[in-house]
């Protein structure tokens, strides 16, 4: 069994298809919680989680505030809320100001995960069109968590992975298929 308490993924432009592919190709017995923060339209609050659940091998939920993180589930940051991981293994939400023009902010989710899980966290940055997430994945690396950045050459928009690579050196730079294989080998 893996020592990791959570996989935390951030992505923006182009990341929906990638997250869908990743969730659809996970082993059904994959039980490490996956926490996903994707930039999304703030006025459209339904549809995304439903679409992911159509193909995902594990259940995807948009958590309520103070919801406990459970094994075998994926948690998607709700539209127009920041999502944080707390020390007690729960999720907290917030409507505080946007960060990097984003709510949810990937930096916020990843940074809070770095504090809550320290070296028992895998952080992944996918394709995206702004620098949100770079600080968050650096925080995970600084706490000795395992970090992966999508290979910019395979990204639909490479700004986000390139921004991450400018501020930190990840453990791995992988293609989407490489990320999926990595996760399935964690179990």
């Amino acid at each position, binding site marked *: 069994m893996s020592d990791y308490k959570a996989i935390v993924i951030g992505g923006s432009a182009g990341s929906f298809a990638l997250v869908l592919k990743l969730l659809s190709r996970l082993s059904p017995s994959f039980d490490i919680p996956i926490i996903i923060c994707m930039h999304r339209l703030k006025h459209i609050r339904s549809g995304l989680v439903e679409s992911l659940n159509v193909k995902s091998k594990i259940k995807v939920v948009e*958590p309520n*505030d103070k919801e406990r993180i459970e094994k075998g589930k994926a948690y998607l940051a709700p539209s*127009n809320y920041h999502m944080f991981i707390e020390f007690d293994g729960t999720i907290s939400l*917030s*409507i505080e*100001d946007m960060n990097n023009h984003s709510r949810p902010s990937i930096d916020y989710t990843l940074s809070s995960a770095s504090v809550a899980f320290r070296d028992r966290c895998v952080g992944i940055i996918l394709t995206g069109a702004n620098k949100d997430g770079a600080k968050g994945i650096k925080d995970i690396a600084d706490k000795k968590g395992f970090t992966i950045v999508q290979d910019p050459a395979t990204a639909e928009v490479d700004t986000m992975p390139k921004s991450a690579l400018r501020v930190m050196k990840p453990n791995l730079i992988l293609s989407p298929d490489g990320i999926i294989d990595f996760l399935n080998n964690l179990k």
Partner: protein
Amino acid sequence: MFLTLTDIKDISVAMSEALRVDFTNYNTSFLKRRVTRAIEKLNLHKVQELINLLKDPQKAEEVAFLMQVPCTELFRDPAFWRALRKNLTGRKQLSVWFPHLTNGYELYSLMILLKQMGIPQTRVVASTFSQLVIDKAKQLNITSKIDEVNRYNFERLEIANKYDEYVDVCDNVTTIKPEIISSVEFHKEWYINEKVEKYDLIIFRNVTLNYNVLLHERAIERLVQSLNDDGLLTIGIKEVILPRTLRLNEVNANEGIYGVKKQNV
């Protein structure tokens, strides 16, 4: 600036004493973010400087204001306001309480909705522990970006053609007409400390997000005491009712609208 758990504890105790609000039961990570932000905005460098500042009532006011998480637009979550409109239809009159006003957007939203629906208000009370929140609510200036969002929300609420009736534009500054809230009674008090009075509608959205479970439960219990028998309590769409044993009925749980459960006689 890096804040330790001891820093957070010391500041929350100092703020609780200075502002008469129980910050010791706010969510720790929220406090960490908000206090860090306050220290930056006030150009301070040490935690102790913030604690010392709280001894000056005028500076304490600034800190109280910086601890607020404002709602950022009129009719945020149009689906909620649509659901509320549906649930208020048929009411002859209404008393309303905003226990935790943060900047006025929700207050204006409700007053506009009630005007559109033709529902007279017997009383509207807005409570906050920050005088600056009250002052700013009475003069709510909006940026062009928020103006755009407001128009979009009005459109989604199908009252788009009415937006311009509710704003004044002067020297390129857009202000929501203050007369919309002229009948509102403002209380500078933390709602938990207010004497219990009854209301038909309590708007309390996205406030418990900043609390730990203990304060969350205390807050909801206190608000239920202030609900009339046919009253409605509204919370944010991603908040839950705690404790779960409370006598509350799901009127529209998806939109965070709850009513008082009828007791069997």
